[in-house]
């Protein structure tokens, strides 16, 4: 049992930190180059092979490890050293509760593809996120540098503000699926809804042609809570301090904000935290809004039901597992692509725009979303 948990943790961490993050570093270079009509990093080579720049993350890593770790005079040495660790640990720990597959039966044993299947999964991620705030804030404070300090102050205000709206924006999802557990949330999306179905609930009679309308949509969060999807994506990107929300870093105003006095691998850890956080956001968005590991229109029962009579229960479970894990990874890649696209498309917000967006647009919208969701649930008679 302990072995299984360790294996799952290892799988997730190796997949994200070992595969996803280097690829993201590469995508960061290459996508920006593509969008700005450049070539992008293509010189790092092993024995003359460049592999379209894929060795650059490796070269970056070696460079960061071997560079001098400069600590500015007058810095608070302890906090300066702790800040990158406080930033990176919560990002990696958040991976534990994201389910990357369903529950599969092999003979007498069942396997649930999530490292920690806890009741309060979403709250766990929020709690870790609020600890990660300290990373940026302490980095800004401990560096003994005005630009860093300004970056830290900005980070504190920005991350607290967006934490509020981030929580409120997904209350609608909690109401619809009635759970905070990410595995239950994904499992609840393993079905379909008829597009015309809502009309019948109100007792209206559909015309003949419409009642035969066969189209169904997957029962996904994005279908039920489209506004929640947009708001949650905005808030989580703002929490992650990446462009267009990179005001704590703001290269054109604050040198590099809270990162100014960091070098070598301590700087690398902050970057690592950001890239891991991209993967965490993608995984969380997938679990909440894009059906998690479910294959659209092909529920687990249908997959197993189709294969099991022909090739046996165990084989059907293996196929189902592979298909669903692949589906999950595909969705996560899609969400990462979306974040990268936004990151390289939009210019940085001004600080007042950032705060107005949070408190005057997203906060009222998310509260309205909660009320609308509650109203619809009440009408549908789903409030017990």
């Amino acid at each position, binding site marked *: 049992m302990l072995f299984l948990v360790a294996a799952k943790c290892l799988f997730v961490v190796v997949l994200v930190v070992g595969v996803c993050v280097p690829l993201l570093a590469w995508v960061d270079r290459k996508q920006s180059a593509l969008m700005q009509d450049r070539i992008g990093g293509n010189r790092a080579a092993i024995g003359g092979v460049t592999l379209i720049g894929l060795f650059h993350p490796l070269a970056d890593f070696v460079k960061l490890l071997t560079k001098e770790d400069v600590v500015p005079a007058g810095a608070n040495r302890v906090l300066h050293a702790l800040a990158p660790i406080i930033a990176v640990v919560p990002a990696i720990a958040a991976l534990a509760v994201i389910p990357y597959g369903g529950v599969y039966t092999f003979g007498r044993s069942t396997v649930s593809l999530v490292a920690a299947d806890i009741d309060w999964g979403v*709250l766990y991620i929020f709690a870790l996120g*609020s600890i990660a705030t*300290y990373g940026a*804030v302490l980095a800004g*404070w401990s560096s003994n540098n005005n630009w860093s*300090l300004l970056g830290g102050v900005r980070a504190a205000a920005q991350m607290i503000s967006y934490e509020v709206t981030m929580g409120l924006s997904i209350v609608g999802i909690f109401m619809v699926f009635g759970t905070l557990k990410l595995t239950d949330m994904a499992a609840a999306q393993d079905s379909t809804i008829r597009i015309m179905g809502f009309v019948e609930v109100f007792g209206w009679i559909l015309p003949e042609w419409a009642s035969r309308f066969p189209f169904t949509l997957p029962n996904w969060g994005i279908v039920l809570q489209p506004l929640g999807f947009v708001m949650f994506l905005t808030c989580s990107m703002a929490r992650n301090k990446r462009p267009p929300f990179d005001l704590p870093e703001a290269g054109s105003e604050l040198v590099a904000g809270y990162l100014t006095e960091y070098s070598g691998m301590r700087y690398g850890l902050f970057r690592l935290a950001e890239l891991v956080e991209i993967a965490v956001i993608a995984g969380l968005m997938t679990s909440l809004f894009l059906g998690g590991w479910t294959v659209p229109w092909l529920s687990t029962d249908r997959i197993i039901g189709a294969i099991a009579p022909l090739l046996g229960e165990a084989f059907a479970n293996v196929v189902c597992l592979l298909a669903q894990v692949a589906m999950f990874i595909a969705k996560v890649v899609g969400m990462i692509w979306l974040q990268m696209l936004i990151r390289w498309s939009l210019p940085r917000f001004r600080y007042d725009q950032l705060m107005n967006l949070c408190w005057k647009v997203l906060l009222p919208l998310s509260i309205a979303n909660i009320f609308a969701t509650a109203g619809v649930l009440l009408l549908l008679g789903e409030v017990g």
Partner: protein
Amino acid sequence: MTIEVVLFYALAALAVFGALAMLLFVREVVASAMGLAVTMVSLAGIYLLLEAHLIAALQIIVYAGAILVLFLFVIMLFDPNNDDFDRADPPQIAIKVAGIAAALMLGVAIAGVVSAGLPDAGELPEGFGGFRDIGLQLFTAYVIPVEAAGLLLLAAMVGAVVLAKQRID
């Protein structure tokens, strides 16, 4: 000793350590605030051992994640190590009187608890402490206190905005 007991003593020691650090580093304001953070996170760990998942999560999200970060925010805005900062230390006699009074109060409280014993905490159903149980209680049996507390906080917030607005205008 089971793993829970070991974890409990470790977390309790960490909580006390954080509280002491908060007092000892009172001149290093940020370090002092971090001591408070250590105490809060350790308390969350103790709540987790009690299977009070909701309170553990709220302890971190609200106290460690929001309130304390706001403390840090204020500390950074008004750098207290700056010489311009008017550090008006209270007179020595006042510090001594306050210290003795606090020690007396603590002594009376401890003596009261030891002599009278703690009231019975009441029976809780097995596994109580999840957000569903507490949420149901809050919005059925305790709905009026919850709403009253909400109203009070709203009033405090409006008051704070009014006071701050006067300074700006």
